[in-house]
């Protein structure tokens, strides 16, 4: 057996993402929403004024700041992008179970654990690539449009967002490894994502969950103290996802 089997599988997974154009599509979505965030913040006062004037209502909107751009960016990345990622990756394993491609690998000298880990690493790659590009694009336009933008804080916020997005992707891979239907995997991933997001209302719980990462992003903008506990909690959460996937997949019969 090849000792570098994990590398071989990961290389194939990433190549498959390019071949199926999933990677390009996801990257484009990341870029679009990264650009939209500062632009929306910039034009929001004008949009509100024009709407309110047409209704004969006068609304005073303060001039936009970089904080508005970053708030919009955090929302886009952790809500819309997460939703897109669930749809795109809900079949990452389930679809291969459905169409039989997994059998092709399972009859080769490959440990099932390696197959699962390669899937997790491939989504990790997607998340890192997406957030890196988004950070550069959104950071550039926010810097261009607004004064007082602190790039160092934005970098740290992107780290929190990245871990949040990875945790969403790990939930998707987990359900995709447990279920044979990608639709079931997608629905359950979305429900789990919503439930975790709702915990942000309860600080004591969210401090140890991915939802706490968003709270920390917002805290940074408010200038209040930030905690790194959500990172630790999310890492534990993601490890549990990987372990459960491995256990479930090792028992799966083709």
């Amino acid at each position, binding site marked *: 057996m090849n000792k570098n*089997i994990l590398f071989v599988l990961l290389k194939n997974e990433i190549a498959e993402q390019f071949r199926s154009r999933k990677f390009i599509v996801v990257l484009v979505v990341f870029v679009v929403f990264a650009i939209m965030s500062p632009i929306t913040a910039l034009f929001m006062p004008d949009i509100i004024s024009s709407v309110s004037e047409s209704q004969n209502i006068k609304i005073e909107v303060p001039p936009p700041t970089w904080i508005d751009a970053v708030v919009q960016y955090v929302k886009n990345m952790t809500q819309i992008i997460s939703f897109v990622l669930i749809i795109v990756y809900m079949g990452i394993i389930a679809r291969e179970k459905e169409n039989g491609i997994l059998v*092709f690998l399972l*009859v080769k*000298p*490959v440990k099932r654990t390696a197959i699962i880990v390669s899937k997790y690493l491939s989504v990790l790659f997607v998340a890192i690539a997406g957030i890196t590009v988004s950070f550069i694009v959104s950071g550039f336009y926010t810097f261009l449009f607004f004064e007082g933008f602190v790039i160092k804080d934005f970098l740290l916020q992107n780290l929190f967002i990245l871990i949040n997005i990875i945790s969403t992707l790990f939930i998707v891979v987990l359900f995709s490894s447990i279920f044979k239907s990608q639709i079931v995997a997608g629905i359950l991933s979305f429900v789990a994502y919503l439930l975790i997001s709702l915990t942000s209302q309860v600080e004591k719980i969210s401090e140890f969950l991915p939802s706490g990462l968003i709270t920390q992003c917002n805290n940074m903008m408010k200038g209040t103290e930030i905690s790194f506990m959500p990172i630790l909690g999310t890492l534990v959460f993601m490890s549990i996802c990987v372990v459960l996937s491995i256990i479930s997949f090792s028992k799966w019969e*083709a």
Partner: protein
Amino acid sequence: MIKCVNLTKIYGKSDIPALNSLNIEVQKNSVFGFLGPNGAGKTTTVKILTGLMKQTSGEFYIGGVRNDINSVGLKSKIGYLGQDNKMYGGMTAQNLLMFVGEIFGLSKKDREIKAGEMLEMAGLSMSANKKISEFSGGMIQRLGIAQALMGNPEVLFLDEPTSALDPIGRKEVLEFIHSLREKCTVFMSTHILNDVERICDSVAILNKGELVAYEKTEILKNKYSDKLIEIVFAKNEKDINIKDLFEKIKSVEILKSEKSSVVLLPTDMRKAKIDLLNFIASTGIDIERFEVKSASLEDVFVKLVGGTKDE
């Protein structure tokens, strides 16, 4: 080369085993036909032997080594082509074989040489750089066998390799399988009797999870029925009821009846010939052919499996 000892599979809480205490041994460098109607348990057996499914009880050995689900050692000894042969459609044939070679730990140079050999053997050299999604059914099956041979397997498992193919594709694939005999042991499950008769050295017949016959192909044909009588009726005899007519003759048993022909299994050949010819003469039925013939594998199959269908 392959040994199954009391191999049993029961799905979920079912009372009826999908595979019941299978005991077979397959000789090295032979083509073994695993025959049975749909739902007989063939695919279940192949999935257990390839480590895709766990048996409920029993053991199996490949090359003398006991194996189980998830055994990586087993996977390095086998090649497998499934019933529904799915591969990465976006890859080219060359890329797919290079990827498989990489999994087996071959160096880049060795992978290139081996992939070239396999493409040539499968008759796909001209399509090496074509996307798999653009291949015909026959080409996909041949590529499937080629990728299964990339790791120099000791045993090649083929699950219904020709069932989805047109006659030309089927002929190509069967010839390809036949040529593999010297390279490895082939375990081929199928419900197409003609395929088994054409290329298999030995055969096992499975029905409802039970092994009903297991012999060398020729021995099986001789053992279960040495001589049969086939009568083909003239085209103008459209309205005869074969079953009603021939059931009256006690010296024969109807093995298979079709619209214009009947295959009969005699209990006493001499008496059966006299009875049948007298019967035909007395009733005036117009016939085209009256033939005493050796049993084909299909006749044996019908006798063994068809007879148990209604039980």
